[in-house]
């Protein structure tokens, strides 16, 4: 717990200093995208890592957030600091509605239905041309006076810090512990009075809220939103980040988001080869690093700790 908190604080300080060390616009853009994915991976991790249900519909919230911000900005001309929080709230409302339906299901059914919701929203975005402008998408979203990449960087850093703070508070709250108890053993948790649905619902809505914030930011930053935000490819990227870093840890998704963003960018030259490699990486992670990089680190620490423990009594005997 303290290790996790300290790591997060160090990372925050490092992230705050970064734009003063880096002036290259391209590198700043990469940093902005990495932080954007940090928010998304953190929000998905709440559901996948702590509730233990595998949601494939997280893009539903990213997309509703992005479209909300885009519509508010293009039609009402509202600035970023209004549209992004509203985007978060709208996504949270969607999260509540979708969660109320899907969290009654478990396992493969949950997976398929969350995916079905995201697909329905994608099709709606594609076909409800009067509002969403269909496949053409909404372009020319205002940037609210933010011109410099550095300013955008601080906005997304604030959002990432908020997302991690909220996650941290959730994970170490009673609701978070209840969710973990349900994840580990549903029946034991129920027998001691934990309401599985309630715990899962809190995580789900919180995750939706963060994904909505990220979506709202994305709309302003890219200044274009199309139905692609609901696409499965987006979803796959976020999942890979969470798993590569280590689900069920707060630091893991950050590590995963940074690594995958950089990999995606530097392998951009070779589009299909990049994704082919991605597929192989995903399979390798599932087979060889089932708990992600952070899980690997934690296991090494445990092994290290236990060898010390095993050695001490042996030494005492020889003395």
């Amino acid at each position, binding site marked *: 717990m303290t290790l996790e908190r300290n790591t997060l604080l160090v990372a925050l300080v490092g992230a705050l200093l970064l734009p003063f060390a880096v002036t290259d616009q391209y590198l700043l853009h990469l940093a902005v995208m990495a932080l954007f994915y940090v928010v998304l991976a953190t929000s998905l991790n709440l559901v996948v890592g702590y509730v233990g249900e595998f949601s494939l519909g997280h893009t539903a919230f990213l997309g509703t957030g992005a479209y909300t911000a885009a519509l508010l900005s293009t039609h009402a001309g509202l600035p970023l600091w209004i549209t992004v929080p509203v985007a978060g709230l709208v996504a949270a409302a969607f999260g509540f509605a979708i969660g109320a339906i899907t969290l009654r299901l478990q396992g493969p059914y949950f997976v398929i*239905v969350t995916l079905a919701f995201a697909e*329905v929203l994608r*099709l709606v975005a594609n076909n409800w041309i009067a509002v969403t402008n269909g496949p053409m998408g909404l372009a020319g979203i205002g940037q609210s006076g933010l011109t410099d990449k550095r300013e955008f960087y601080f906005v997304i850093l604030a959002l990432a810090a908020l997302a991690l703070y909220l996650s941290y508070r959730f994970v170490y709250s009673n609701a978070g512990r209840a969710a973990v108890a349900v994840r580990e053993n549903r029946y034991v948790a129920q027998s001691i009075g934990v309401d599985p649905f309630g715990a899962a619902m809190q995580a789900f809505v919180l995750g939706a809220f963060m994904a909505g914030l990220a979506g709202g930011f994305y709309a302003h930053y890219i200044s274009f939103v199309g139905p692609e935000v609901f696409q499965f490819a987006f979803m796959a990227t976020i999942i890979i980040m969470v798993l590569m870093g280590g689900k069920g840890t707060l630091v893991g998704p950050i590590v995963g988001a940074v690594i995958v963003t950089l990999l995606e960018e530097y392998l951009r030259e070779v589009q299909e080869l990049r*994704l082919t490699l991605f*597929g192989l*990486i*995903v399979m390798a992670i599932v*087979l060889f690093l089932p708990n992600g990089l952070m899980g690997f680190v934690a296991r090494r620490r445990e092994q290290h700790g236990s060898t010390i423990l095993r050695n001490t009594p042996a030494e005492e005997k020889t003395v």
Partner: protein
Amino acid sequence: MDLFLQYLANGLVIGAFYALSALGLTLIFGLMRVVNFAHGEFYMLGGVLGWFVTAHLGLNFFLGLALVAATMATLGWLVDRFLIERVRGQGEEPGILLTIGLSIFLVNATLLVVGPAPMKVAGAFAEGPVFIGPIIVTKLRLLAVAVGAAAILAAHLLIRRTRLGRAMRATFQDPMAASLAGIRTKHVYAATFALGCTLAALSGMLLASVYSAQASIGGLVSLKSFVVVILGGMGSFAGAVAGGLLLGIAEAMWGGYVATGMVDVIGFVLVILILLFRPQGIFSARAERA
């Protein structure tokens, strides 16, 4: 009224196609409980291989179909023994990830090799319309429906009447008891996966002769197949057929009378409703908690 019959016929044909493409998933998802996101890619590989063996190796359609089936059965067997087996018994999640990884790999490796352009598989005979009263269907569609029906029947007989089929049913009821009774469950799992993979590839090649084979078609096929399997009830062939027909007719009617744009939404809405009100599927007799 004429149009109604035509829509119904279209719906039945499309529904039969859906049922056919979902058969493999009925085995792999319905019986083995592997949430196989690579299903659509097996289907796609069937189409692409079908194009390869007919256009490049110059085999005739049915010979090519047999070759594709054999290749994909081998691939399915290997995938199960080398990948799926290692995460068996760990819940659904590792299987989901593994198959997502596999599907990303297969799509993009295929794109690297053959490119994104659609490939036409030469049909068994020349295409032409068939008039049945007021309804028009094309010959190749009828052939696909017929071969599909034969595949469904064959798979059904295999599972109900053969030794392997009996071993499969025993294994999926209780793997421990099955292995105590001397069934080599590893082989049974691999055989089931191979069979599912083969059925997916067969439907991919058949339908590539009606439409065309394309490297990126897999995602859509996976989704529709999940819809069909859940609609019909897990692991039931009859259910898959009924689910496919239901989806096909619902889409044809919606497309004909309401709006064409949102046709694909219907399947997802049906699935959401089914899981809420009848999670065991419309046709599955066994009550099962979702």
